[in-house]
């Protein structure tokens, strides 16, 4: 294994050799090598978070027809560093009556839950933290940590609006976890494994986005709700409850929440890429040709993965800055009365078709067409429901008094 084929293993072998040469036991050498690797991954994730602050501000500015930061560094690239310095030197105000321990722990846990996910993200076929065979379940579990931190922040702030914001946010996050987990079950069924690396490898023939476009749509919608971004950002409804659960947080603690949210959004963009768009591979079999064998290089794969994750993040940002906020009862009704039944029926249909069509030649077209048919049926049901409602409204409309009469 050379550096270009297998960088992480090579470096860890070399480090372990050095440590054992100093007389350390093999286990201790492995633990220390792991710790160094963990630091590298966490610093990489934080570096991406810092870059994302700039991306987010530039993109929101362009959506709103303005320029965004462009003074600090070329194109405003050093803006995040200025932001970090500003946040660190701001005073850390703890409101009176706040629950100090939980108040201080909440931002740490919020960012920690996102960093934890990066242990399993496969950047390339040889570059990842660990390849556990229950990675999908681990993802959902680590994401649930973030939900805990929201209620911790809201409760300990000694502020009614923080508490109400936290309630609403947690209700949204847990509700949308069901369609999200079911949408994650669909690539798991098709690939037959929970390991993220295997799911990426299983897409070497065709992307799962073509096998299950409804699953992709379901995942995107529930992921956006999980993240607490628009149009589901009741929590940060700036015009309603100021900053929701993080009203009382100042300085770097707020910075941790903010960086955590952006990194979480990017990580979900990465998961869109891994589960539905082929992850670090998915070149439709092109890399088997001799002319394209450089596509199997881990560094090229990492670049491909980051590009796909950025495109996923772009889609999430696009939705955020184009759509108005949804009211809390509409949000929850949308989830429990539409998305959850849809998700389960889609799951049943996918499982059945996967089993029936696997030995035949019609796998890809069968899955794709069945998804389209299902989407069409759902749209027809929705249309007939709304037609009924409109007819009902027309019959039962009461005449409205014109205000100008008086």
């Amino acid at each position: 294994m050379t550096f270009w084929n297998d960088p992480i293993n090579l470096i860890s072998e070399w480090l372990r050799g050095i440590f054992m040469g100093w007389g350390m036991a093999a286990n201790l050498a492995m633990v220390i090598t792991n710790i160094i690797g963990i630091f590298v991954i966490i610093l990489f994730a934080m570096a991406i978070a810092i870059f994302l602050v700039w991306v987010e501000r530039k993109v929101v500015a362009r959506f709103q027809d303005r320029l965004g930061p462009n003074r600090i560094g070329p194109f405003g690239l050093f803006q995040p560093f200025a932001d970090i310095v500003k946040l660190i030197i701001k005073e850390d105000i703890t409101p009176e009556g706040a629950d100090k321990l939980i108040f201080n722990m909440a931002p740490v846990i919020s960012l920690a839950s996102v960093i934890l996910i990066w242990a399993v993200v496969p950047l390339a076929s040889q570059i990842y933290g660990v390849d556990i065979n229950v990675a999908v379940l681990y993802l959902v579990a680590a994401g649930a940590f973030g939900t805990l931190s929201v209620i911790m922040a809201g409760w300990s702030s000694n502020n009614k609006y923080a508490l109400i914001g936290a309630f609403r946010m947690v209700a949204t996050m847990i509700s949308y976890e069901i369609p999200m987990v079911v949408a994650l079950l669909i690539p798991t069924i098709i690939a037959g494994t929970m390991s993220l690396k295997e799911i990426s490898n299983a897409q070497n023939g065709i992307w799962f986005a073509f096998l299950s476009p409804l699953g992709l749509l379901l995942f995107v919608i529930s992921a956006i709700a999980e993240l607490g971004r628009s149009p589901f950002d009741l929590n940060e409804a700036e015009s309603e409850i100021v900053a929701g659960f993080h009203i009382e947080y100042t300085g770097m603690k707020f910075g941790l929440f903010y960086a955590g949210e952006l990194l979480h959004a990017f990580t979900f963009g990465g998961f869109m890429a891994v589960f539905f768009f082929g992850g670090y591979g998915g070149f439709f079999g092109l890399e088997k040709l001799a002319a394209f064998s450089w596509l199997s290089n881990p560094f090229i794969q990492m670049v491909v993965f980051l590009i796909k994750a950025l495109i996923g993040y772009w889609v999430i940002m696009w939705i955020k800055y184009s759509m108005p906020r949804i009211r809390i009862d509409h949000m929850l009704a949308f989830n429990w009365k539409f998305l959850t039944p849809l998700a389960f029926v889609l799951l049943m249909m996918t499982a059945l078709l996967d089993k029936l069509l696997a030995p035949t030649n019609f796998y890809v077209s069968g899955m794709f067409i069945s998804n389209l048919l299902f989407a069409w049926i759902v749209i027809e049901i929705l249309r007939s429901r709304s037609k009924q409602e409109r007819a009902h409204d027309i019959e039962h409309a009461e005449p409205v008094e014109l205000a100008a009469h008086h």
Partner: protein
Amino acid sequence: MQGQWLYIGLFLIIGIIVPIIPLLASRFLAPHKPNPIKQSTYECGIETVGESWVQFKSQYYIFALVFLVFDVETVFLFPWAITLGKLTIFAVIEGIIFILILLAGLSFAWRKGMLEWA
């Protein structure tokens, strides 16, 4: 495989320590001048009225309960999803019946009005 979970354990510990570092930097570099007005609860500039720990709307509890049922169901569906490729079609039908039973539970909750409002 133990090595993998050891890695995740270390990741958890270091993942909690790393966000604390900027907070420590802030503790040393930031001013610390508390006064009662700065530390009062924020309510858009007016005085707060009443207790901060408002009454908990019970509908949230019902949503959490429904979520619990379905979350446990999805955890049970994971092993089914992984081994689907190696089992016969009877296993698929069994899994579908399991999901249908729980969808019946959802429709019960819907009809009883448990999913109304937020």
